[in-house]
């Protein structure tokens, strides 16, 4: 046996080290995420997917590399989040296939497995685009195969693969114009490079260095449009206790309360006036929050929920509430307003999640399994969740139809189109037809300065995307962006415009904008509280 032959435990350690390295890079990767959707969650999604993969591998004490690779692949599949996560899971599937039946592996085996992983990843994507993680994987696998000809030790093969991956990342802006315009390299490609680089550090016995350093973003090869300073995207990972209350007092200072509470938790929302303030915060110490608030006034409507329990309870409660039906619906949504709205429209299981917090394949699968029917319609409501939703179909014995809704207005239109007298196939058809009749405008703040769709955007400006694809407006005020975007989307021809306002917007402000829409475009306008994070407004035209 050759001295450097590695076993399954080595493979596990390699990717554990790679994941640790990737975790440190996640905020940077999030910040450069512009393709396919500039939603700042690629790094997070890749880390979460890797964590699932490692957890599954940890449970496997087998030394055979074939068995460990299989566990990694299965875990990655169950945990796949977002587009990059799904591609990563395809990568591990290909790797496992390449290492099948092997107890140990050397550089040659790894190079062949990488080639298989690259092929699998390409096949898994309907429209593969160059200049992305796919290209980086392809280039790395080619370099690995070349390397085998000179030196087939694992370290040497991976070293060449990593070097080639880095060069490939640097070339991504020349291949994908949207990257060049935004002045960044591809986020998913950067993530894969960091993952492989971390694995290499383990093989070289340098993983202890990960503690003190952090990965650098690859510098683009070509001249780029100069970019503004970047800000790490905020992670919207729910953890700890979701704490809500209304504070009644005199001369309450909203901005001071906000400032004080900011230090005590995440996802903070403070709304109201100087006599009545509503607070929402995620914190590990809800007692401390309430202690602070009682010093300022009287507390009402206090709710404290353990968010981990909450999710399990949520699914359980929904199951108990629903009698067995012919066809059950499962959807993904975020925001208390949207939860309430969807529940008011009928029986539907809601998996919490959406933009910047894509649910995993496992969460979607759990919801499908808990649904009170063997026939399921799944509405992902986000472009980045569609592929994860499709994975669920092969993991359950239930019949699952995915109606590829790409935003919440499409999801609501599909839900409403549900025909009580139609079978699963006919319903899916009716819903697909319905989603083509709705257009969605999503308004958010730019996380950094960039150029998109020919528009110069400053960090913090409001931007409006039409159908998650085209940036159609930008302005300093949210309301101006809504009005301009509606004009470009043809609001005067719409039968009804629905304005869903987010957690950070006050109802009165949304009503004012609605009135302006009516005055300017002479169309029917309905205003609904969505309570969504991330998007200040989601507007639908039907």
């Amino acid at each position, binding site marked *: 046996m050759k001295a450097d032959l590695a076993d399954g435990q080595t493979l596990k350690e390699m990717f554990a080290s790679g994941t640790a390295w990737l975790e440190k890079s996640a905020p940077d990767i999030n910040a450069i995420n512009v393709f396919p959707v500039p939603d700042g969650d690629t790094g997070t999604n890749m880390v979460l997917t890797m964590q699932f993969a490692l957890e599954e591998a940890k449970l496997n004490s087998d030394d055979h590399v074939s068995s460990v690779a299989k566990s990694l692949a299965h875990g990655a599949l169950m945990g796949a989040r977002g587009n990059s996560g799904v591609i990563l899971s395809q990568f591990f599937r290909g790797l496992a296939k390449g290492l099948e039946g092997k107890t140990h592996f050397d550089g040659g085996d790894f190079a062949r497995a990488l080639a298989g992983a690259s092929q699998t990843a390409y096949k898994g994507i309907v429209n593969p685009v160059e200049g992305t993680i796919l290209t980086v994987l392809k280039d790395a696998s080619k370099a690995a195969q070349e390397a085998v000809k000179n030196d087939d030790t694992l370290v040497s093969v991976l070293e060449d693969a990593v070097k080639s991956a880095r060069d490939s990342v640097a070339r991504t802006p020349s291949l994908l114009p949207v990257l060049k315009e935004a002045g960044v390299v591809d986020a998913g490609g950067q993530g894969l490079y960091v993952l492989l680089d971390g694995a290499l550090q383990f093989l070289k016995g340098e993983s202890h260095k990960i503690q003190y350093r952090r990965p650098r973003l690859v510098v683009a090869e070509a001249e780029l449009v100069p970019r503004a300073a970047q800000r790490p995207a905020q992670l919207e990972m729910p953890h700890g206790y979701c704490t809500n209350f209304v504070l009644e007092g005199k001369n309450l200072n909203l901005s001071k309360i906000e400032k004080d509470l900011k230090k005590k938790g995440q996802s903070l929302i403070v709304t109201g006036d100087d006599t009545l303030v509503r607070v929402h915060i995620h914190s590990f110490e809800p007692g401390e929050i309430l202690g602070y608030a009682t010093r300022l006034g009287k507390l009402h409507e206090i709710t404290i929920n353990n968010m981990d329990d909450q999710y399990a309870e949520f699914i359980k409660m929904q199951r108990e509430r629903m009698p067995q039906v012919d066809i059950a619906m499962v959807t993904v949504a975020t925001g208390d307003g949207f939860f309430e709205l969807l529940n008011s429209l009928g029986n539907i299981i809601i998996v919490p999640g959406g933009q910047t917090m894509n649910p995993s394949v496992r969460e979607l699968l759990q919801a499908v399994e808990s649904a009170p029917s063997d026939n399921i319609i799944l509405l992902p409501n986000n472009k980045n969740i569609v592929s994860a939703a499709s994975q669920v179909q092969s993991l359950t014995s239930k019949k699952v139809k995915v109606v590829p809704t790409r935003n919440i207005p499409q999801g609501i239109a599909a839900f409403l189109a549900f025909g*009580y007298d139609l079978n699963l196939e006919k319903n899916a058809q009716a819903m697909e037809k319905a989603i083509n009749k709705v257009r969605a405008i999503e308004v958010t703040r730019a996380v950094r300065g960039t150029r998109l769709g020919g528009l110069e955007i400053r960090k913090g400006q409001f931007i409006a995307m039409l159908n998650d694809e085209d940036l159609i407006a930008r302005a300093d005020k949210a309301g101006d962006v809504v009005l301009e975007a509606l004009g470009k989307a043809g609001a005067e021809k719409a*039968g009804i415009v629905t304005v869903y306002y987010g957690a950070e917007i006050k109802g009165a402000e949304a009503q004012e904008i609605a009135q302006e829409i009516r005055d300017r475009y002479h169309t029917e306008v309905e205003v609904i509280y969505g309570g969504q994070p991330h998007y200040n407004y989601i507007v639908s035209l*039907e």
Partner: protein
Amino acid sequence: MVKVVTDSCSDITPQLAQELGITVVPLYVQFGNETYRDNVDLSTEEFYHKLGTSKIQPATSTATPADFAKVFTELMEETKEILTITVSEKFSATYAAALQGKAVVKKDCRIEVIDSKLGAGAQMLLVILAAQMARAGASLDHIIDLVKRAIPRIHIRMTFDTLEYLRRGGRIGKAQAFLGGLLKVNHVLGIKDGAAFPIARSRNRAQGMDFLVNFVKGFSQIETVAIEDATTPDDLQSLAERLKDVVPPERTYLSKVSPVVGTHVGPHVLAVAVLEAE
């Protein structure tokens, strides 16, 4: 010749009733102490005007056994065979009233009472079929057989801006699944097993009308169609225009919901009913 009797929930216009020799027994609408015979003392237009201006919510009551007995007695002067087709007994006690009316009249005439399990335009199409067969000289047994076979082939779809009237009158049935929605939607209901049944929803009235048109176009062969409105004659005309190439005008019946039906469905409703070919 067999004489055909129905109740006013069939929304058959007086002209059509006269033309086909159909006797329509009216139900009653009450605004407080004022009682009106459906489509006799009160037209659909007058009803909706009152609905919009009166502070009192209207209520409805069934035709009485005596009303049916009186009609049967009159018809017995000219026929020995009477077929009565009533609105679904899940919507009204009119079926029971007709049976009691039959029990109190003299027995030298054969009177049959059938629960259509339908209402409005759908019931209309069934009654028209029976009346046409009667005029063609078919026997009572033959007509009964045809009518019973036709019931499952009649389908109705009605769009609602609001289900409030249906809920208030307690006729909402399984369509209560549509209640409580926080979004303004157009509801499409049908009738299944004699009761209201939820079919689909859309965000606006135009999509609801599209649904009705596509519903009719979905049948491969159609014998007759009924199209109805409540307060929107322009929409009725537009539906008729869009369907004129699907079913020829001579087999298309236009009508308005009667005040009694209107009490339970409210303003703005539109309906299409189809009798599928066998």
